[in-house]
């Protein structure tokens, strides 16, 4: 008898499993799933709240990750409504792979800055100091957009006489780690483990802002990232997805992005570069 009871227990456990997996279908609220670049965490979380307030019964679910990770996930069949990328390159790849509905639009720009710990152990006062031997520099890996831009920025600085043609080479020789995302770069500078790191202006304004100082890179050499956004093909809630894209490009949306250190692009339809 005891044994048959345990059989019943196992069976009921199974039924609980089955029931819990089908529960999502019975939910009343609609969910809008937004895949967004990790650097958008702060402003998009805020915009998500106001979107939920404006659309009762809607829950906005975010997946913040590296743009390349987001692309891989969508390509492997992850269900999402909106993709906001930190890099036109990955958005173009997504479009070429037939994952995007309509045309991606530009919604923000973000410039690179150099951050150093507040204590500044390597005494980095200007960009030239980054090439001094012994400096521990941390940047993002080349596959991550910000890492790709960092190399481009260093190459541009090398072509300026006050930096010298060896500048990029000397700076790259100081690299202690290629982090797999921009938050890894910030963490290592914040903890004082790295002497300097290259991140987006918006990251330097994030939660760890008080622990780092910012060096600005001149516009002529800076690489300014374009952030495109698009509704995805096969989006479970296409109407809500369009509304979310509109919110991001509206005046309040742009203001929220500016507060987080992004450069606004202004409302109006512009094709993504």
């Amino acid at each position, binding site marked *: 008898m005891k044994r048959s009871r345990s*059989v019943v227990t196992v069976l009921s456990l199974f039924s609980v499993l089955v029931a819990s997996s089908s529960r999502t279908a019975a939910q009343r609220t609609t969910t809008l799933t937004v895949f967004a670049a990790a650097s958008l965490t702060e402003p998009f979380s805020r915009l998500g709240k106001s979107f939920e307030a404006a659309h009762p019964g809607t829950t906005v679910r975010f997946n913040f990750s590296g743009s*390349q990770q987001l692309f891989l996930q969508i390509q492997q069949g992850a269900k999402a409504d909106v993709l906001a990328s930190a890099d036109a390159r990955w958005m173009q790849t997504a479009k070429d792979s037939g994952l995007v509905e309509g045309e991606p639009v530009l919604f923000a720009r973000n410039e690179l800055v150099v951050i150093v710990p507040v204590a500044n152990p390597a005494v980095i006062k200007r960009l030239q100091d980054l090439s001094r031997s012994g400096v521990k520099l941390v940047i993002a890996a080349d*596959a991550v957009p910000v890492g790709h831009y960092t190399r481009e920025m260093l190459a541009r600085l090398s072509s300026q006489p006050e930096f010298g043609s060896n500048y990029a080479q000397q700076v790259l020789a100081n*690299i202690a*780690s*290629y*982090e797999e995302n921009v938050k890894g770069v910030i963490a*290592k500078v914040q*903890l004082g*483990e790295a002497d300097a790191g290259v991140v987006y202006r918006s990251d330097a304004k994030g939660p760890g802002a008080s622990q780092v100082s910012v060096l600005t890179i001149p516009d002529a050499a800076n690489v300014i990232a374009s952030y495109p956004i698009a509704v995805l093909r096969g989006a479970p809630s296409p109407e809500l997805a369009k509304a979310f894209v509109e919110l991001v490009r509206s005046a309040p949306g742009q203001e929220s992005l500016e507060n987080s250190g992004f450069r606004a692009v202004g409302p109006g339809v512009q094709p993504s570069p």
Partner: protein
Amino acid sequence: MKLLRTIAVRALVGLAVGGLGFLLVLPVVSLLIRTPPGELLTRLGRPEIQQALLLSLETSLLATALVLLLGLPAAYLLATRQFPGKRIVEVLFELPMVIPPTVAGLILLLTFGRAGLLGKSLGAWGVSLPFTTAAVVMAQAFMAAPFFLGPVRAGFTTVEHRYREVAATLGAGEFYSFFRVMLPLSLPSVLAGTAMACARALGEFGATITFAGNLPGVTQTMPLAVYVEMQQDLGAAITLSVLLILLSFGLLLALRYGQSRVR
């Protein structure tokens, strides 16, 4: 009724085992099917893959040696001594098994990092651990130690008390009896612990990238290379994955054979 029950139980057991196979074995098989051996061999010749492979072998062997050296006495003491707060010490030693590896990397940074608790004094001696191969070894040893301590301690515990007592009455000191009685009698457990620790060290990712960073040739082990390559060259990532799986499989299989020999 009884027959029916037997059938039901067998069906459920069959279902569970099949489910487990589905979950654990199918992904490995699908990875191996996807990769033609010829392509694998060509990619094996690429310098960045060889670099990651060699670094992984070097660091995981060093980490295993470190765990063996530091863990053997600790496992022995835990198995043979009683002291106040022993349970707490045991749990502390088990902790790396359950905390997320990224957390492990972070606490290593906060301790041995340049601005860390101990790191500041280390810095005064001119030693800086983060971003070095030594940091990789430390991260791996940290994560692998519980996998060694668990089985080895259990092995020591099962060696009967009277063997040690007999050795003592025959005039053997504790040191002598450890090497001539305890260690030979619990060799299967020591082997098991060593192989498990080595396999865990080989697969370490989160603690390594957090504490040691990611620099090819210095701190980029195979698991890190898989992650980075996945973002630019899926083929290379798959090659590295196959290598990692084959290595771990070989290691654990060798352990099984080794154990049956010793027994």
